[in-house]
Each structure stands twice: as C-alpha cells, then as structure tokens.
C-alpha cells in the first residue's frame, strides 16, 4: 500500500504512531481535540484515543505549556500544539524559565520529555502574527532543542524522534509547505536523528544551509544555477539547536563558500550563528564572505506586501552566483 502524503498528514501519522505505541503520549491545545486542529494535524486523535488523550483547552498558551510541564514531571509525555508560532509568546515565560531549565535546576531529578509543536513561517497570505519565524529566539535558550522539518518524510521521522526524546523540544512546522507537495514515505515507524543536519544534495562550489520551507526554494535555485554549471552542496539543518556544526563545517572546508538562506529577519539570526561557526571552525578555508540571504529586519508584511519578504528562488540563484563569482 502506498503512503503518499503531505506534511500535515505526516505530522498526524507521527502522532498516531506514538499514541498507539505509548499511552503516556497526550496531545492537546486549542481546537486540537474535536476539530482536529486548525490545520488538521491532530485530526482523528480524539476519535481513536478518546478525550482523555487528545483534547481541547481554554485559550491560554501559557497554561498549555505550563500544564505540560506538570504532566511530564508526573510521568506523561505531552505533545502540545500552539496554534501559530506568533501565539507562542504568552508561553514564553514557561518555556524559557521552566521548560528549558527543569533538568538542570534539579540536577536531573525532574526531566521534561515533552514536545511543543507550532506551525511557523510566512507565505500564506495571512493576518498579522501568522507568519512569524522567530526560531533564533528559541535557539538562544540553553536547555531547549529546536527542530524544523522540511519534507513530509522528515516531519514524520523527526516528530517521532522528538516525542521519544527525553528532553523538551520545540517542533516548528513550516506551514507554507504543509500541503505544498506529497511524498511517498514509510507508513510505519521510523526515527530521524535529532541534532543532525542532512546533506540534501552534494556539490562542490558553495555550501547552502537552509531549513524549513526555504529548502525547497533553495532546491529550485540550485536547478537554476545548474544551467551555469554551478553545483552547490545543500544542507538542511533539521535541528536548529543544538546545531550540527560538523556537517556545515566539513562542507565549507570542501566548498570554501557558504550561503545561508532563511526567511527570518537577517540580524541576530540563526544565519548569524552559522556565519560565526564557520569563522570559528573553517576560517582559513573561506574564499568568499559567508553570506546570509534572509527576510528583512522588519515585521513580516501583511499579504499585499508579503511577496517581497521571503527570498525567492531567483534572489537565491542570483546570490549564489555572486558568491561563486566573488
């Protein structure tokens, strides 16, 4: 039987897989139960596993995360949904003050095997606060892992691994590609490693690091520059923090050039950290300035301006050429 599915379905499959295997897995959040989530990522869970294991909550993100902390301490494995990353901030205090700290604070006595899922990123012509990419903010928090899939296959494998991980994970789902394409993926159980990047495409001329929805745009750009005989190596970060520096550094040692493509604002960003890493680890290999192609240092525009914001494949291609011709 084939299992050709899109990313929301992959998320849903991962949840079902884990809920079947482990009855400590509990899934909740706003509109998560009866309705199955505003993006339908939690559809069928309540029907399959009952109201105790998949349910709706009052509209309060801090308590969604705060109660998950209590549940995790008390032996469950909560997987909570925040409706959009732009609404993760009411829970920010719980995340930075407790989620990321409980293990260290108690020297390992209390641990938090929990996952916070949130759709993130722009490009869906949405209202304000529905297009955020603030992964840099969360990546700066010691004790928190931040994971971002870029395909249905990755979404399923990484989410399964995240749920099984003994540590708390912020799992950000690029909503722009929730339904953008389908992939044939295993119907059963599989894990993908947290903390490891993936070389999506090998190449010689330049290293391109990206994650989430941008990976597809990078791949389109790579096709464009292939016509000019430029062969980039494309790395999908998969885990933002703690970052797989080795894969990046090894690649840059080979190519001598690096472009980071992100939709988040350019400054104080994940891209900045990557530039910093290659400086630290591969300085003498650099043949051109490590470069970020990113969103502007502005608020994500409302739909009539959003076409400017996210780097397009054309801009990516042009930037690749600039760097390669440096």
């Amino acid at each position, binding site marked *: 039987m084939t299992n050709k599915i899109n990313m929301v379905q992959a998320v849903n499959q991962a949840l079902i897989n884990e809920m079947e295997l482990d009855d400590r897995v509990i899934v909740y959040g*706003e*509109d998560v139960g*009866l*309705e199955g989530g*505003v993006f339908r990522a939690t559809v069928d869970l309540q029907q399959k596993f009952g109201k105790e294991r998949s349910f*709706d*909550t*009052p*509209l*309060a*993100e*801090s*308590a969604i995360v705060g109660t998950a902390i209590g549940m995790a301490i008390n032996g469950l494995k909560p997987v909570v949904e925040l409706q959009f990353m*732009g*609404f993760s*901030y*009411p829970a920010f205090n719980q995340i930075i003050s407790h989620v990321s700290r409980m293990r260290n604070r108690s020297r390992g006595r209390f641990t938090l095997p929990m996952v916070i899922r949130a759709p993130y990123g722009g490009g869906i*012509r*949405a*209202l*304000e*606060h*529905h297009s955020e990419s603030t992964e840099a903010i969360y990546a700066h928090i010691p004790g928190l892992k931040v994971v971002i899939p870029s395909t249905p296959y990755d979404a399923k494998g990484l989410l399964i691994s995240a749920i099984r991980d003994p540590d708390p994970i912020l799992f950000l789902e690029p909503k722009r590609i929730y339904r953008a394409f389908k992939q044939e993926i295993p119907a059963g159980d599989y894990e993908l490693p947290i903390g490891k990047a993936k070389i999506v495409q090998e190449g010689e001329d330049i290293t391109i690091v990206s994650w989430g929805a941008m990976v597809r745009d990078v791949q389109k750009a790579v096709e464009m520059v292939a016509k000019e005989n430029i062969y980039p190596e494309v790395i999908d970060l998969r885990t933002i923090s703690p970052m797989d520096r080795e894969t990046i550094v090894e690649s840059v040692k080979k190519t001598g050039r690096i472009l980071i493509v992100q939709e988040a604002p*350019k*400054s104080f960003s994940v891209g900045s950290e990557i530039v910093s890493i290659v400086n630290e680890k591969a300085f003498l290999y650099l043949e051109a300035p490590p470069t970020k192609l990113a969103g*502007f*240092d*502005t*608020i994500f*525009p*409302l*739909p*009539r*301006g*959003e*076409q*400017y*914001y996210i780097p*397009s494949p*054309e*801009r990516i*291609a*042009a930037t690749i050429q600039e760097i390669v011709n440096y």
Partner: protein
Amino acid sequence: MKFEDYNPLEEKVFKIMDKKGKIINTDDMPNFTNDQLLYLYRTMLLSRTMDEKQLSYQRQGRMLTYAPNIGQEATQIGSAYALEKEDWIVPSFRELGAWLIHGVPLKNIFLYWYGNEWGSHMPEDVKVLPVSVPISTQLQHATGIGMANNIKKENNVVLTYTGDGGTSGGEFHEALNFAGVFKAPTIFVIQNNQYAISVPRIEQTASKTLAQKAIAYGIPGIQVDGNDIFAMYVATKEAADRARRGEGPTLIEAITYRLAAHTTSDDPTKYREDAEVEEWKTRDPILRFKTYLENKGILTKEWDEKMKKEVENEITSTFEEIEGKADTKIEEIFMYHYETMPPILEEQLKEYKDFLEGGKNNDK
C-alpha cells in the same frame, strides 16, 4: 438601571427588548429620537451587508481571510453608541459594528482585510486602535489608556472588547486587575458568542457566567442580552457614566452568538449543530430591532429597501476604490519601524531595489 440588580451569581441577565422586539423593561428603555433609531438600524444593515459582501468577495478570491460579525451587531453597535466622539475604542478583531459607529471609514476596514497596513491608519480624530490579533492583549492597552486619562484628568472613557475565549488568557486577568486597582475608566465588553473557534463556552471555563469573573477584581460585572441593542446601549452608558464619575471599570458580558463561521478558513458544521444555529437565528439582533421599528411605525418598507441599496452601493463603491489598487510599495515595509529609518533598513531596502532593477527577479 443599577448593576447591583443584576448579580451574575444569580444569573440575572439585563434585557430591555424581547426576541420579538417587544419592550419588556420600560423603566430602562432609552429615549432615542426616530433619527437615532434609524441611524442605529442603518449601521446594523451596513455592518451585516459589509460582512456578507466580504464573505462573497473572499469566496470569489477577491479578498483574503475574513472574520465576520454576523449576529453580533447589537452587542457592538449598542455598546459603541454609548460613547462620545472623544472616547476610545480598543478592539479585538471582530468589531465591525463598533468601528462603524465610532467613525472608522469603510475604506480602512476594507484595506485592513485586503491585507494592507494602511487599513490601521485611523483618521486623526478617530480614537480607535488597530485590530489586535493576539487574543486579549489589547485589554491591557485599554486599561493603560484609562490610567492615562486619570493621570491627565481627562474625562473620556475607554471601551474595549474581547471574546469568551479571550477571558482565559492571563492578559485578561492582569488587565482587569490593574483596571480595578487604578480605577481606570475602562469598560470591558466580553462578546460571549458561545465559541472560541471550535471550543464551546462551557469548555472555556468552569465559572457559570463570564460576568462573575468581575468579582475577582472587585469591580461590577453584569450579563446583558447582547442581541438587544437597547440593553447593550443602556448597560454601556451606565458603565461609561460610572467611569466618568471616577468609579472605575465595569465588566459586561454580552450574551450573543456568532451566526457565521469563525473566519473564512473555518467550517462550523464540524463543531456545532444546525439546530443550535437555527435557534439563535430566531434571536437575530437585526430582525428583532427591525420588528420593533416596524411595530412602532418608524421603519417603512420603502425606507428599508432604500437603505439596503444605499449601504450596498457604499460598500461596492468603496471596494472598487481599493481592489487591485492597494498593493504595498516596497518602501512602505521599511519606513514605519522607527521615526527615522536606521542605516540597516536603508541598506536592506536599497539592496532589494538594486536586485529588482538588476532585472534578475520575477518576484513581482
């Protein structure tokens, strides 16, 4: 009316007009002129028609996500009409009726939902804040505006809205508690439309009424029939009078119903029964008010028809003004972050323009 007579713990709901448009509480019936009554009716029509139009434009792919207010017109129009021009409105995102009453131009409203920030650029003399998407955060702004009024010894008041879902967030709590402590002249209206997207009111909180949450802050709280425009007006007016007298904030729970979907991305049949919707349709706030006006001989069929045409024209001509003409210019994305654009934004703007001019682009 006195708030004390409507103790929410006894589940007493303040009403003036029943669902057949009959006045059942003559003592509290406000003294409106016919012109006022017709103005209110016309605004209700404008609001309803605007909702219907936007929904249909959206379906045609001419507009984006939209959050209709159908069914909540009396709550919003009744309450906002109790304000003076100098008073403030701090909306959530579903307050079309209140916007219209308090002077937000149709064009702004369209622009906003069309996806252009200029929609939130209110005219200088319109004291209405922009839409606030993060639920219940705006209540704190309303408290702060009220606190500033006290400090400046100004006498105007603040009217702010949230939903039934909006009562669960911590920001609601902090806003009302500050308002209580600092006696902010702020009126908090909960539009209890029975749902927060798919989550019914009963699962939002275990408290029997939302109005009783006022007790936590030592302020008056009252349940009002939100589909009764007179009751909403009178309760809000009384709250505004209290506020102006320095007696502080009030919490009003308006009991109403969202007759349409949460937004155009929502399918309410997933989470509620048709029968429930049908029942609430019999309590339609516009129908009820219309019946009242007709029975009183204030509204004639001709006037009604004429008005319907008039508001429809107003709406379609405003939409024509913006459709296809409201794309954001690249500069606008950068210009309004700070009073003076910092070098990094100048640079990013320039880079992007250079790229466009380099012709390597087909983004647009």
